[in-house]
């Protein structure tokens, strides 16, 4: 049995079901009496339209959506002990140019906030629905980059602490979500390799939306194309079974909440 981590990051290409899976996983944790939240963030630059950090409870799940400017302001406020100066700094063109020219900077600010939340509540488990694949690498890389960029000062120390937590296998775990097609699988493996090069934490691949597991016994009754699709999935699963942390079936439902609920029972392996 794996030990419970404090931060679970779900990543992978768009449309693989990250959001549904992240929420289903929060649901799983809640059902097992853990305190868990679903977390996502809004933009990479200060010129993106953002709505302020929001927190709401949807169908029993606490969902937090982080706003970049608010996170930056709060951080500076804490560092300089002044709300007024912090509000002024985040509005200056210099600071905005800094963040807009250096988009990885935004991840540093978001990650700082997430780890801060974990510190404030030692029981809290954060499930992060992270942006599409290239960005997950940027996210992990940004902390390393900025450790190199800043040689001293509060950010340097904070980045160091952040790196220590983010790269601590007992604190963080990354799940790459893939579809059961060869191309999607290869991309997930590439992403995992990229992440492994940058961080020592566990990176597991979950294969979502499998048709094969639904039609295993009906293959000869399917039309040619669908049968080929299912057979390709079968082949892929056979060839890579040992590397797949979790295999989840295609859902016939159209409603995200219903799909979440269907998935909950199959997620024990994601701990």
């Amino acid at each position, binding site marked *: 049995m794996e030990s419970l981590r404090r931060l679970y990051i779900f990543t992978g290409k*768009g449309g693989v079901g990250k959001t549904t899976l992240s929420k289903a996983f929060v649901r799983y944790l809640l059902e097992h009496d853990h305190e868990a939240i679903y977390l996502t963030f809004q933009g990479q630059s200060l010129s993106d339209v953002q709505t302020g950090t929001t927190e709401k409870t949807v169908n029993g799940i606490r969902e937090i959506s982080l706003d970049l400017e608010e996170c930056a302001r709060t951080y500076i406020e804490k560092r300089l002990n002044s709300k007024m100066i912090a509000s002024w700094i985040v509005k200056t063109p210099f600071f905005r140019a800094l963040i807009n020219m250096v988009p990885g900077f935004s991840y540093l600010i978001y990650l700082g906030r997430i780890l801060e939340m974990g510190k404030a509540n030692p029981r809290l488990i954060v499930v992060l629905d992270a942006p599409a694949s290239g960005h997950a690498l940027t996210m992990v890389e940004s902390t390393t980059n900025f450790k190199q960029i800043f040689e001293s000062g509060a950010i340097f120390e904070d980045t160091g602490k952040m790196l220590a937590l983010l790269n601590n296998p007992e604190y963080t775990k990354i799940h790459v979500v893939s579809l059961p097609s060869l191309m999607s699988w290869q991309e997930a493996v590439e992403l995992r390799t990229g992440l492994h090069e940058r961080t020592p934490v566990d990176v597991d691949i979950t294969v979502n939306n499998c048709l094969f597991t639904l039609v295993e016994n009906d293959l000869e009754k399917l039309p040619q194309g669908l049968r080929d699709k299912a057979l390709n999935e079968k082949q892929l699963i056979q060839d890579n079974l040992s590397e797949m942390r979790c295999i989840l079936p295609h859902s016939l439902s159209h409603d995200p909440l219903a799909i979440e609920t269907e998935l909950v029972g199959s997620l024990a392996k994601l701990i």
Partner: protein
Amino acid sequence: MTLSTKSFEIFCGTGGVGKTTLATARALSLSQSGNRVLLITIDPAKRLKDLLGLQGDAVGEVTPVELEGAKLDALLMSPEKTIGRMAKKYQTPDLANNRIVQILSKPYGGMNEILSMVEVQMQFETGLYDVVVLDTPPGAHFLDFLESLGKIKSFFDQNFVEIFSYLGQKTASAGKKVFGLNLINRVISSGVRKLLGYLQNVTGAEFIDDFIGAVQIIYQSRDAFLKGLSLQDKLKSRTECNWFLVTSVEQGKAQEAIELRSHASHFIHQDHFLVLNKCLELELQGWEPAEPHLASLKGSLEDKEQMLKKQLQEVFPVVLEFPEIISLSPSEHIQHLTEKWKSYVPQS
């Protein structure tokens, strides 16, 4: 509205939908109809990299490709190589040597979008191509970037940079005489100095010095960056650019494609096409399963696809459908999609 040939074609999409494969097929179909084509791609899947031969030394270099009897040039973006070309072309060697610029131009470092604009502009200027097809990174990132171009432009605003020069000289050699600063700048710069004083507590003094250094170096290369930025006018022009937003049935999210377009609403003109990949409609049409559970599978797949198409057709002027292609070799797969692209071009 018909699909005509323009100087630029931009492919955006939510990732994992076959965007790069469709862009490659489009580039091939353009080449087969007699155009000189350059395909610029950011993050292709491995088998496409294999197919196009974009590996090892070829990364970041224009590489001739021959596929299905058509020729085109392909370029897999490497920010580092682009910086090198800029430094050479605009004779600003410092650009390639600055520590902060180097870190920012790592493959996932954050300068990728602006560098791809600069690269497209430099390649177009060679006059070697009739059409440049640009495959952008997944998600709304590229569109966000285009939207924020105006703000980046202000980065190169004369006053703003003069203040940096002033501060840079202050840090480099204290007391050195500074030219060209008017009173307003002096007032602003005293504010900036106060800001930097506060920021130094947070970021450390070295970073402020390095960042000011990087800003000055980037400013020295402003011609290259501004030329890249000027490309946005061409991309906004209906006569010069086609936009393709790609999504897939598998992904099943009309909302994301619609959001993508609203992200780009100031940017995208009327000639934009929604490309819907991996349609199962033809496949399912002739299938009459007797078993109830298979019938419900068929019904579910069909419903999902029909719902998606309906939602998309309400919002997008043109929806181009591409079928799901299963169990063909990569090159046959591309050939199939290339033929499909041709079917959308009016025959003259």
